[in-house]
Every structure is written in structure tokens, then in C-alpha cells.
């Protein structure tokens, strides 16, 4: 990722969409990124086996925050299976960057992993 792209993400980072706890949610889960040391909570509202609404709480680095924020839009309307099939390539596409260094992969994935954990918990 080049520097200009990074700075483009700062605007999203400063004021991310879907930040804050949903008033009405079916399941929540806490996620932790060992690479940036950041903790996030995600909240999901489910309807007919798909995600109706998603939000998050927490602060992290630009990669973790922007990816979790954008994922909260991306996963709406998707089933567990569909979300579980997503991976790093999808996160890269969603935040619009082609390369994430090995040490930052945890930052990129913390949002997706936490949403997957929340879905698994909801199914139980």
C-alpha cells in the first residue's frame, strides 16, 4: 500500500461508519488483534439466517478500524456460510489495498474473525 492510499483512509479512520453499539442486536462478540493489540466488539442483528445490521465498538490502527467498519456494510444480507467463506483477499478488496505486510495481517483480519465468531455463537 502506498502512502497516499494510507492517507486517504485517514478520513474513514477518523470518522468510521457503523461505529457504536447497535440498540437492538442478537449477538455480540469481542475480538482481539495480537498484531496491533486492539480490542473490538461487534454487534449483529440477524434476520432469516442473514445479517440484517452490523456495528462495532473499539479503537485500533487504521487497517483494523477501516476494515471492520467497511465489513459492517459488506456483510449485510449475507449468510453465515457466505461470511465464513470470506478471507484476507476479500478484506483487501473491501478496503482497497493490494498488499498487507505479514505483521499487519492480524490487523486486517480482526474484524472478519470477530464477525465469524459472533455468527458461530449465534448458531449455538
Amino acid at each position, binding site marked *: 500500500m502506498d*502512502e497516499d492510499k494510507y492517507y486517504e483512509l485517514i478520513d474513514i479512520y477518523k470518522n468510521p461508519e457503523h461505529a457504536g453499539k447497535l440498540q437492538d442486536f442478537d449477538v455480540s462478540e469481542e475480538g482481539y488483534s495480537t498484531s*496491533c*493489540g*486492539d480490542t473490538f466488539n461487534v454487534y449483529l442483528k440477524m434476520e432469516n439466517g442473514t445479517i440484517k445490521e452490523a456495528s462495532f465498538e473499539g479503537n485500533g490502527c*487504521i487497517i483494523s478500524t477501516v476494515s471492520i467498519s467497511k465489513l459492517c456494510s459488506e456483510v449485510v444480507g449475507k449468510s453465515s456460510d457466505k461470511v465464513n467463506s470470506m478471507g484476507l483477499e476479500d478484506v483487501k478488496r473491501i478496503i482497497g489495498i493490494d498488499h498487507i505486510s505479514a505483521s499487519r495481517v492480524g*490487523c486486517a483480519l480482526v474484524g472478519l474473525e470477530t464477525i465469524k465468531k459472533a455468527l458461530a455463537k449465534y448458531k449455538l
Partner: protein
Amino acid sequence: MSDFDANEVRKDFPILSKTIEGNPLIYLDNAATSQKPSTVIDGIKYFYENINANPLRSLHKLAEESTKAYETAREKVARFINASPEEIIFVRNTTEAINLVSFSLKMDRGSRILTTYLEHHSNLLPWLRLRDKGMFVDIVGVDDNLELDMGRFENIRQDTKLVAVTHGSNVTGTITDVEKISRLAHASGALVLVDAAQTAPHIKLDVKKIDADFLAFSGHKMLGPMGVGVLYINKRVIPKLGTFLTGGEMISSVKMNDIKYADVPAYFEAGTPNVADAYGLGLAIDYLDKVGMDRIYAYEKKLMDYLYSSAASIDCLDIYSGKSRERGSIFSFSVKNAHPHDVAYLLNKKGIAIRSGFQCAQPLIEDKLHVKGGVARASPYFYNTYDEIDTFLAEIKKIGNMYG
């Protein structure tokens, strides 16, 4: 004392002429590991091309030379910290050195260990682990100036067996008064372990003056190769220690029902030792001796004063280090509104290498500095220049403007 010229010593470090992302490398991550001079890099190659053999046991010529290389390195380390060679144990790194003590020091259930909030995880987890074995761990706090609460050492409980304390924090840069701590600990009957990982590269150490029972440091932070570290054990405490790793090289005779162990240091060096890297550490010490630890200390002190005074006028910075009475070559900071990982990332784009995160000292950063998500840290060494500090701070200002 002759004038010290960082630009002159830089020529001895091949990696310092590299470019990163199209910019000259500015390496400010020395608290994590230092760079290596050609003498060390070439020396390790020389060892494998000319000396390599398993030392100590084999009788052939190369084995004899390998043994000599290993023991000469031990003598150099001993001289470097004013110890005797038999008090020097080669280990992998500081972490292993401290674990060795935590595994081998004989302590009854219910004994207490006193350590501090300034510790790196490597001088914290080996003690916290002992709580599972029925020991108690007490933690000394820090004040607003990032100094240890020295009053805690005035009243050490009688059942405290060991005081484990850092000589220099890798986060706050605090240099602790280990001589005083040793004196107070000994007065109450406790042993003292000093983690010197952050000071051995920068400050002339004298174990007799410090009067520690154990002192640990890593070779790789002081120009040596990765994979070799040092544990100094004062001769007087040997009877209080049991085995650590067992196996080859650490015995004098083995019968199925009667094992006689070798004396220290071999007693604590089971298995084929890391001779090549010990040899490399010896060469690193030669280099430090040639430059002179006093000159290194004096130059870095001026460089750090310059860094701190220049940084004081930068509004976007929060600074978490350097408030103590004496400070090491550590500058921990954050840029307002920016996560430390993002600061490290953007600095890397300019060729500047720093560390970001919890710095292996999460309780200190979360509980005492009250920072979530870690801090950024620049840690210069004697080969860093004033120009590099200027470039680093100029880039920080730019990042601050973008996030402001």
C-alpha cells in the same frame, strides 16, 4: 577523550548504507536489536571457515581451537562487566538467562519474589509463572516521573527470596539505582537479579559495584549476533541453585544411579554450545572497547538530550519516556489521533525503523502509562546522527499534520 564521530563509526556497519523504500535507512530500533559491525559479521564467517568444531570434549586440533575461541569469548565478557570467567554463563538471550534463574533457584513454597512495573515481560513472566508453584510475587510501582517507588525496597519482607529488577526500562528509559536496590535487598536477606538488556549496550557495567547476584543481558542488542546472551552468576550464590537443562557437557561422570555434575559455568550450559555466536559476541565487545563505552555513553547522552529538547516543541507528540532522573536511549511517544502501528508504517515509508506496540511491557503501558494499543518507540545507538534525529522529527510533524 577524543571527539566521537558517528559518521565515522557508521562506515563499520554495512547495513546502515542500505536504502528502504527509496530512502536511506534510519535505524532507530536498537532497543529491539542493534546492527552489527563488519568485524562481527566477517568473524562469524571466519569461525565457520577456520575454527568450527564441537568444543570441550573432542581432542583434535579444531576442537581445541573452538574451545579456545569459546573460552576467550567468556573471558572478554567477564572483563567487560568486571566479573570472573567462571561467573559467565552463555545462554540464548536475556529471556533464557532469567528463566534459568527462575527454574534453578531453590525456593520453598510460600517464598516471595519482588519485581517491578518497569519490567519487560522477560523479567516478569518467569516470576509470575512461579505463582503456580506456590510462590508470591510483589510488584513495585512507579511514580509520575517513571521512577521506581524506592520506599518499597526499604521494607522488603523477610520471606522475599529474590528481588528481580531492570537496570533500564525499554519503554520509559528509566535507569534504576540498582546499586542501592542491591544494598537494600541484601540487607533484608534477599538475592538480586538485574536485567541489564537495555543498559549493557550503552553504559559501562561493573558487577562488583552493582553487587548483583545475577545479571542478564543479550548479545544481539550490543552489536553481537542473535542467539547468544549472558547470565552472570555471583560465585557466592552457586549453592542456592539446582540444575536447569541437563544432558551433555554439564556433567563430570554419569552412572545410572550416580550422576556427578560439572562445575559452573559448564553446569548451566548443557548441550553443544553456540560457539560461533559467542565468538561473535567477543568481537562485538572488542569493537565496543575500541570505541569506548565512556565515549558511547557521553555521545548518546548528548544525542538524547537533543532529541528530547527538539521534541518538546512538537505539539502533536505525547511523550512517555525520559522523565526519570537518569534516562537511557529510549524515546517512547505517540502522535495524537494516530495508532502507533500507523506511525511506524508511515515512518518506514521514509526509511525510518522504529518499534510500535506494547514493547513486551503491556502492564506498564496499560496500567501506568494508561495508553491503549501501545506506544511508538525510537531507540538510538551511538551510530545514529543528529541529522537522522532531525529527519525523524520532521517526519513525525508531517504525520501529526495529516492526523491533526
